[in-house]
């Protein structure tokens, strides 16, 4: 077992454990904090895979923006901040079936996958992942269209948010 496999196993256990805590803990803020641990674990996985850009972006966006937005939504919408709601909704049986089916399907797909025994190839030292990603995002035969569509969509969302929040007197 290499050191990378050991780190991977530890991180995997942390991710699964904290993800379990997200859905089982009664306190909403605690759930959000556990979610941050999960997302951070995913960032560590990206870092292990030499995807430094994705790892950092994961922290910036998911922890710096989305998780903090969650916490604020909880803080500003609940009267009682230590509020403990019911853990399950009335459709819990439906979601159980969907979860089991999805997990079964994933296992079935992964059984046919041959990537488990592959060893990752070390990248050459001059491999510029960020540069390649940047070029791919703006080159016409790669991802320029989805990239631009996504930015227009985000701009529309921004304008929409301003319009909704704008208090017309």
């Amino acid at each position, binding site marked *: 077992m290499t050191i990378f496999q050991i780190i991977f196993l530890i991180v995997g256990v942390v991710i699964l454990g904290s993800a379990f805590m997200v859905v089982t803990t009664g306190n909403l803020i605690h759930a959000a904090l556990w979610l941050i641990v999960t997302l951070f674990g995913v960032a560590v996985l990206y870092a292990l895979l030499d995807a430094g850009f994705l790892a*950092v972006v994961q922290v910036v966006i998911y922890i710096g923006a989305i*998780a903090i937005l969650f916490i604020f939504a909880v803080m500003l919408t609940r009267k009682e901040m230590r509020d403990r709601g019911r853990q399950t909704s009335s459709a819990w049986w439906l979601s159980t079936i969907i979860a089991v089916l999805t997990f079964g399907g994933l296992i079935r797909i992964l059984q046919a996958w041959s990537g488990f025994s592959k060893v990752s190839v070390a990248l050459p030292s001059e491999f510029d992942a960020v540069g390649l990603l940047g070029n791919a995002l703006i080159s016409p035969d790669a991802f320029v269209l989805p990239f631009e569509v996504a930015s227009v969509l985000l701009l529309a969302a921004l304008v929409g948010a301003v319009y909704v929040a704008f208090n017309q007197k």
Partner: protein
Amino acid sequence: MNFWTDPVNFIARWLMGLLTGWGLAGWLASFLIQLIGVVVLVSMMMLIDILLVWVERKVVARFQDRLGPNRVGPFGIIQPFADIIKLLIKEDITPDGADRVVYNLAPILSLMSVLLLWAIVPLAPVIFGVDLNVGALYIIATGAIGTLSIIMAAWSSNNKYALIGAFRQVAVLVSFEVPMIATMLIPTILAGSMSMTTIIRSQNVWYVFIAPLAAIIFMVTAIAELGRAPFDMNEAESEIVAGFHIEYTGMKFGLFYAGELMHAFTFGGFWAILFFGGYRFFGLENLGPIVAAVILLAKAMFGYWVIMWVRYTVMRIRIDNMLSFSWKFLTPLAFALLMSTALMNVVLRGTPGVIYVAGMLLTNIVIGWIVVEILRRASRRGRESIDKPIKRAVAQP
């Protein structure tokens, strides 16, 4: 390779030989050496941090025409150690109804978010933790952890002032992060990389001469990010007592305080790296890595001094003014600068150095002049719109 040209790798290689000589496995030995490196770097930063308490108190004393600490040791330099002993022997109080785990975790995360930043600071060409190719984004990412620690501290304290402080601080952080990212992209464009080492290496002319406005905006947003005066909404004493760390006593408060000072010093360092050539100083850095590290720390201290200078001379800004300052002034200006720098960088590429620097500087001056002109008109319009109703009221009877 000897000690004077590459001290860190020299010691690392020596330790590697020693540890493998003892029969340790290679990966374990390299892991231990990395760990030792981290511990040494963090300890060094914490030692500097202790000194920063003294520096801060001496400088604020000068600004306020006082003497500052002067009883313990020569020039009061032992004072911070006395403070630490005081903080350690204080009673550790956890408020009723506090969320214990989160409450105790918050100060640790706060200091951690600052120390993490030093992983990417190149102290010298051969002394750095890691040369990340996403260095500029990494600064923002660790800032996210700092924000998180403030929210955790405020929420777990079960105190309304703490919560108000956190709400304000996050509003400030979220809005000032936007111009900060935009200005950090300017050295990135000029150097063609987000790696701190590459940014320093490509500064044959300091970027403060190529992008002076960006340097100023970065400093302003850094002060806001630090939550220091004039942007200290998170702990505005006259309004919310001490903000998010109101309930913390002893060393837990000490961690927040140390984190704040270290954060200011660190952003002074990043200001130096991004705009003042980092460890470069007229070829003096070639004398050896230790000289280069001293140069970087001296420049960081200069940045820290500027932050203190602003802190102790400018009054706190009201929060609505602060947010509109960010969204209506800094953000558009930062993006205009980003676009013009990118454009001029392409236009002037390949011209001789002097013309390139002069062209860039001229672009900045023109943009600065336009900004001042717009601001003048806006403030005149503001004055006139306030004056009108008063005149009408006087004319009515």
